[in-house]
């Protein structure tokens, strides 16, 4: 009992005092318990996201994984948290011309006119829709590097500075890239950019530095609606596998045969 509770007890009738103390005590203990259990609970939630990080030998073995991302378009609310998280996690310049991930807003009017925008990559959210007439459909589409299994950027890199890791991520070797920008031209998704200070190609890495520590990419971690799902592509009991079992899955620009590993659910045909 705290001194303040003693004071209360002195001033109140016995029955009321017991009830009050019990309720207060109960709530306060609950809060304390939550405080203590939060890290443990969050840990429990996180573990199934990226399971089996440790290989049998102890260290992280990329050959044991194949990663991909699922995006449920119907869940994205266009808050831009993912864009902001990505920028701060990966040292992406804070200007409006360089993004590893961004969010596009599609507004399809009753007149079938498709209006797409992505102000500042969607990082600060979106202004109110300015269309005349009714809206037929409207939705947000998060975009990022598709980490294609047949990546055109990897094919065209003259020195092999862009490469595919064993666990399926497409990365750029900063120390090796000559800055010819052929990969930027070859990417059908506009996912690559030239780093203005390092003068090398840059792109989404699936937060590779986090993957190897058993963490999910920053954009997945901060998404408040769970629109982004990350995990193993080929294992059956993972969130991504579940996502792909229970949704109709599409990829972007399938006719280019790049075999993307970013899988969209509830994707509209207008999205390119």
């Amino acid at each position: 009992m705290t001194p303040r509770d003693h004071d209360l007890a002195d001033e109140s009738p016995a029955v009321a005092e017991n009830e009050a103390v019990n309720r207060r005590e109960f709530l306060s203990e609950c809060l304390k318990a939550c405080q203590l259990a939060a890290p443990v609970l969050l840990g429990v939630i996180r573990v199934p996201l990226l399971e089996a990080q440790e290989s049998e030998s102890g260290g992280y073995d990329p050959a044991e994984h194949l990663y991909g991302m699922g995006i449920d378009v119907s869940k994205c609310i266009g808050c831009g948290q993912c864009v902001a998280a990505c920028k701060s996690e990966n040292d992406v310049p804070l200007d409006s011309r360089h993004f590893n991930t961004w969010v596009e807003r599609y507004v399809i009017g009753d007149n079938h006119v498709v209006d797409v925008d992505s102000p500042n990559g969607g990082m600060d959210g979106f202004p109110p829709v300015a269309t005349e007439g009714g809206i037929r459909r409207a939705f947000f589409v998060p975009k990022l590097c598709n980490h294609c299994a047949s990546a055109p950027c990897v094919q065209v890199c003259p020195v092999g500075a862009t490469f595919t890791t064993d666990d399926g991520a497409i990365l750029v070797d900063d120390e090796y890239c000559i800055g010819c920008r052929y990969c930027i031209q070859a990417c059908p998704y506009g996912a690559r950019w030239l780093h203005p200070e390092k003068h090398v190609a840059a792109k989404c890495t699936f937060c590779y530095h986090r993957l190897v520590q058993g963490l999910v990419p920053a954009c997945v971690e901060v998404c408040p609606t769970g629109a982004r799902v990350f995990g193993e592509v080929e294992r059956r009991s993972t969130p991504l596998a579940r996502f792909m079992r229970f949704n109709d899955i599409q990829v972007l620009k399938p006719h280019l045969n790049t075999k993307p590993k970013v899988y969209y659910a509830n994707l509209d045909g207008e999205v390119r």
Partner: protein
Amino acid sequence: MQGFIYPNEFELYWGLLIVVYPYVTGLVAGAFILASLERVFNVKEVQPTYRLALLTALAFLLVAPLPLLAHLGHPFRSYEIFLTPNRQSAMAMFGFVYAWYLMVVLLLEIWFDYRKDLVLWYRNETGWRRWVHYALTLGATDLSEKSLRFDDRAGRWITIIGIPSAFLLHGYVGFIFGSVKANPWWSSVLMPVVFLFSAIVSGIALVLIIYMIASMLRWKPVDMRCADKLAAFLFYAMVVDVSLEMLDFIHRLYESEESIGILTQLIESRLFISLVVLQLALGALIPLTLLGLTSPALSKEPIFKVPDELRRLIYLASAILVQIGIFSIRWNVVMGGQLFSKSLRGLTVYRLELFGLEGLLMTMALLALPFVILWVLVKVLPPWPEAEAELPEPGAGADELPSATLP
């Protein structure tokens, strides 16, 4: 900006220097193919421009990698293309194609062609010229009939290898663009072929310009049979080139794929001046009409009989217009492919810089440099017919120095 572009597309990643690169490489390939006309196909009329065409090709080839180098984010890492090339990459082959063309084709051909003259010049000369020419013989000063026959045969074989190599050099540059499936403006199987024929057009036109201006500066008459023949070849090459471009255009329009809407917008707005006005009207239709009406080499009775002086002017004007047209083709390919969004929903703009590594001044310097190199080459290796040294009379003593005329 107009419509929607992906946020990463605000910046155009390939600028003016990448326009210069295929333009210069095209001139190399074209000039070489022109030179091979005389050597392999025995077109005697163009003989006065044979050596000039080879030297032009060399001067431009030496400059060809510079725009690429200046454009790289890390030029000092460029050697990695040779050391650890990614064999799947079209661009990785550039170094090898370039080295093959420079070392095996151009330098060897020029050396075999000039060797006899180099030896005779050095024997006749004094001062620095003597030593430069001696060094260029690489010590091979044998002028026996057998060795001269070998020179000729070797030169001929190198030209025969050189023609497909020139095709490879520029067809390959076309492939770098044509194989980018992400870009509907570039992705076309016709791209290497169009590049090749536009290269031939630009090379012939360039040699025609240089030949005429050099004749003027040297106060020598222009060989009109040669000029007429060059004009005729220019006309033929342009007919093929424009036909291929039209085929590409009609094919795209008829297929009318997903990208046709944005590409139509692109041509109607961003590329109207450079494509419709410069490339098609000024760069193709007007020169084709001028040449077609006046060149006596096209038919025995040209539609308009024009006096030599006027014809020379018409040829020169046509060839300059053709250069503008071909530069516009390169611009339209390289810039056109980046001015629309790969979302196919919007257009962006190119902001030309004046200064800086990729600016206008740098570009102009790079375009002027080949002419400086050519001037030096012409001083060291005069390509004019009258500069060719005569062999000593048969039976003349070895000590007797043959007579040679130098400009």
